C-alpha cells in the first residue's frame, strides 16, 4: 500500500469539505477511518521502503520513507486520531464545518511529518500542522484561548523560521535537502557549522516538542482549547513532532555536543514540568504540565540515543498518546459537566458518574506507570535500558514518577470525594466518550499484560535505529 494515500486522502477531502457544508463533518469521519485502515495495511510489513514522489529519484525529488519506527507511529497516530474524534463526538464547536477542514488537514500534515524523507518538505508539513494547531488552540470558548493561540503562533513562527535557517545552512554546506544524503555528507562538515545548524533546528523543533525553555505556550493552549482540539493536540501531535525530532536531530545532524545538550534540557523539562504540574489548581493545566514532563523524559532518552533508549522512548510516547487521549477527553467533559475544571469544582464528580473515574483513573495510572498498565512496562524498560549508561537517568525517571503519583492520586481522590454541594442528578457520560475511552483502556491494559513476545515490533524499532540506515532512509 502506497503511504501517499495517507496524505492525499485527508487533503482531498479537506479541499472538498470547504464548500460541502454539513458533509464536511462526514468527510472528516471517512478520511480518518480510511487512514486508520490504510495504516493497518502499512503496519503489516518490515524493513525500510522509500516511495518517490513525482517520479524523481532522491536526492533530487522528494521521497516518503517507511521504516519500522514509522510503521508503529503511523498506526498509533491514525488510531488515536480516530479514537479522539469518537471520544469528543458529542462536542459542538463554533463553525463546526470549517473546523472539520482544519482537523482533516492536521491529519494529513501529521502523516506527512511521519513519512517524509526531505528536510524542506518536513518544514512544509510542520507549517501545516502548526497552523492547524493554532486554529485548534483558538477553538476554545473563553477569550483567553485566542490569546493563548496568538502566543503559540508567534513562538511557533519564530521556531519555523529557525528551523528553515537550519535547513538552509545544511543545504548551503552540503548541497542537498534529502535527509539520508545530508546525513552522509554532514560528517565532513566544519563542526561549528554543524553545531549551529543543529542548534537552529533544536530551537525550531523544540517549540513543537515542548522542550524547555521553548514550551511557554503549551499550558495555556492545552488548558483552554476546545475538548477535541486539546485532546488531539496532546495525544497525536507529540508523536509526530518527536518523530520529526528523531529524524532531523539524531539521524541527520547527530552531533555529540548537541545530544548532551538535549539530555540536559530534557531532564530540566521533566523536573520543571512535574513540579509545576504538582501545584496546578486546574485539571487541564495540570495535564498540560504533565505532558511537558513526559516530553522531557522522552527527549532525554532520544538524547541518549542508544537502541534501547529509542525503544523506551517509543513505548513512553505511545503510552503518553493513549493516556492523554483518555485524560484530556474526560477532563474536557468533566469541565463541561462541572462548569469549570478547577480543583474545588470537580470534587465528587466522579462519585456521581463512576465511568469518569474509571476512564480518568486508567489514564492517570498508565501515565504514572502502575503495574498491569502499559506505562509500567515502558518505565521498567526505560529504567533497565538506561541503568548501564549512568545512574542519574533512572533516578530522574523515578523522581518524576514519584511526583506524578502524588498529584494524580490527589486528583483521583478529589474526583471520588463525597461533596454535599453537588446535586443528586447523575451526569451521563456521552456514548462516544465511553466507547473510545473503554477501547483506549483496553489498549493500555493489553499492552501492559501481554507477553513480551507479542510486542516484537518494538524490538524492531530498536534494531532499526542501530543500523538506521542513513543510506537507506533516502532509498538511494
Amino acid at each position: 500500500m502506497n503511504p501517499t494515500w495517507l496524505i492525499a486522502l485527508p487533503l482531498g477531502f479537506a479541499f472538498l469539505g470547504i464548500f460541502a457544508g454539513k458533509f464536511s463533518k462526514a468527510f472528516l469521519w471517512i478520511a480518518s477511518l480510511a487512514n486508520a485502515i490504510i495504516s493497518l495495511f502499512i503496519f503489516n510489513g518490515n524493513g525500510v521502503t522509500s516511495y518517490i514522489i513525482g517520479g524523481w529519484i532522491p536526492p533530487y525529488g522528494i521521497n516518503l520513507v517507511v521504516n519500522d519506527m514509522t510503521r508503529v507511529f503511523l498506526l498509533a497516530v491514525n488510531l488515536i486520531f480516530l479514537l479522539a474524534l469518537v471520544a469528543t463526538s458529542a462536542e459542538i464547536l463554533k463553525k463546526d464545518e470549517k473546523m472539520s477542514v482544519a482537523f482533516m488537514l492536521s491529519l494529513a500534515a501529521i502523516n506527512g511529518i511521519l513519512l517524509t524523507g526531505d528536510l524542506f518538505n518536513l518544514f512544509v508539513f510542520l507549517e501545516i500542522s502548526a497552523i492547524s494547531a493554532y486554529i485548534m488552540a483558538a477553538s476554545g470558548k473563553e477569550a483567553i484561548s485566542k490569546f493563548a493561540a496568538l502566543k503559540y503562533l508567534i513562538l511557533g513562527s519564530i521556531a519555523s523560521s529557525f528551523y528553515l535557517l537550519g535547513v538552509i545552512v545544511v543545504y548551503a554546506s552540503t548541497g542537498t535537502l534529502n535527509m539520508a544524503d545530508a546525513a552522509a555528507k554532514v560528517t565532513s562538515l566544519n563542526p561549528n557549522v554543524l553545531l549551529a545548524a543543529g542548534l537552529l533546528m533544536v530551537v525550531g523543533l523544540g517549540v513543537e516538542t515542548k522542550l524547555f525553555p521553548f514550551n511557554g505556550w503549551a499550558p495555556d493552549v492545552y488548558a483552554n482549547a476546545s475538548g477535541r482540539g486539546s485532546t488531539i493536540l496532546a495525544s497525536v501531535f507529540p508523536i509526530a513532532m518527536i518523530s520529526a525530532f528523531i529524524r532531523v536531530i539524531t539521524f541527520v545532524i547527530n552531533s555529540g555536543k548537541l545530544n548532551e545538550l538535549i539530555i540536559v534540557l530534557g531532564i530540566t523539562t521533566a523536573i520543571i514540568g512535574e513540579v509545576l504540574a504538582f501545584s496546578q489548581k486546574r485539571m487541564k493545566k495540570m495535564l498540560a504540565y504533565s505532558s511537558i514532563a513526559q516530553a522531557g523524559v522522552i527527549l532525554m532518552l532520544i538524547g541518549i540515543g542508544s537502541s534501547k533508549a529509542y525503544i523506551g522512548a517509543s513505548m513512553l510516547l505511545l503510552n503518553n498518546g493513549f493516556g492523554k487521549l483518555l485524560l484530556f477527553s474526560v477532563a474536557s467533559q468533566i469541565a463541561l459537566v462541572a462548569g469549570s475544571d478547577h480543583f474545588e469544582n470537580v470534587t465528587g464528580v466522579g462519585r456521581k458518574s463512576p465511568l469518569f473515574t474509571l476512564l480518568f483513573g486508567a489514564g492517570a495510572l498508565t501515565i504514572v506507570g502502575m503495574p498491569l498498565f502499559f506505562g509500567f512496562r515502558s518505565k521498567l524498560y526505560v529504567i533497565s535500558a538506561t541503568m548501564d549508561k549512568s545512574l542519574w537517568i533512572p533516578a530522574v525517571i523515578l523522581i518524576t514518577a514519584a511526583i506524578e503519583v502524588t498529584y494524580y492520586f490527589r486528583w483521583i481522590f478529589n474526583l471520588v470525594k463525597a461533596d454535599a454541594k453537588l446535586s443528586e442528578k447523575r451526569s451521563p457520560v456521552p456514548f462516544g466518550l465511553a466507547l473510545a475511552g473503554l477501547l483506549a483502556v483496553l489498549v493500555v491494559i493489553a499492552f501492559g499484560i501481554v507477553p513480551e513476545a507479542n510486542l516484537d515490533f518494538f524490538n524492531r524499532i530498536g534494531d532499526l535505529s542501530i543500523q538506521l540506515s542513513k543510506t537507506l532512509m533516502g532509498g538511494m
Partner: protein
Amino acid sequence: MKKAIAALIAFLFFLMFVNILNSDSEEFKGIPKFGEVNLTERVSNKYISKSVSGDSGEIVYGKTENAESGSANMVTSIVVNYRSFDTLGEVTVLFLAATGVAILIGGGQRKSLAISVNPIVKISARIIATLLLAFGAYVFIHGHLTPGGGFPGGTIIAAGTLLMLVADDKKRTSKLLKILEGTMGFLYVVIGIAGLLVTGSFLKNFLPTGTMGNLFSAGLIPIIYSVIGLKVGAELSALLDDFFAEEGRK
C-alpha cells in the same frame, strides 16, 4: 533593561552567524563564500541541465524537444515538477490560513465605506479589475516561460478583487469563491492521484513535453500553475473579503 537584553541576544545571534559564514576552509567544508558557490556540489546542478533521470545532452532554447520537465524557467520546473509535493503543501498552508481567518473573523456583513464613490470611479474600477484578472491569468499561464507563476498571478487577481471591494459595493460572492478554491485544491490532489495511478508515483507528470520555449511545452506545469493561480486568487480574495467584513453585522 529588557531592551538591552534583547539587543544583546540579537547581537549574539548576529555574531554566531557571521562566525559560521566564515567557516569554509581547506580543512573542513562550511558555507561557501558569497558568490563562490560551486553548483556541481549541489543537487540543483541536475535541475539546470535537466538530467535527473539520465543525461540528455545540452538543452537549447527553441530547439530541444521533449526535455525533462520541459520548462524554460528552472525555478518553475522545480516548484511545480521536481518539488511539486512542497507546492501542494504550500497551497494547503494558504488554504488552511484562509480557513482559519474565516473561522475567526469571517461571516459578517461588510461595512460600507464612509465616503461615497463616484460612478466614474466605479466603472473604471470594474474595467481595471477585469484587466487585472486577464493579466493575472497571463502571468500564471506563462509561468514556465517567464518569471511569475501561480502565486503572483493569483495575487494579481486578488488585487483586482481588492479594488472592487474598495470602489464598489458589490454583492458578496464568498460562497462562489469557496467553491472555486475547494475545487481547484481538489483538482491538484486529483492530478497527483492520477499520476499515482497512471505512472505509480504521486504527482508525476504523465503528459508529453513539447519543444522548449513553446506555450504548450511543459506537460502538467501550465495546468498545475493555472490551478494554483485560480485557487490562490479565490483564496486571497475571500481572505481580503473576510478582513473587510465587520463582525456582528448580518
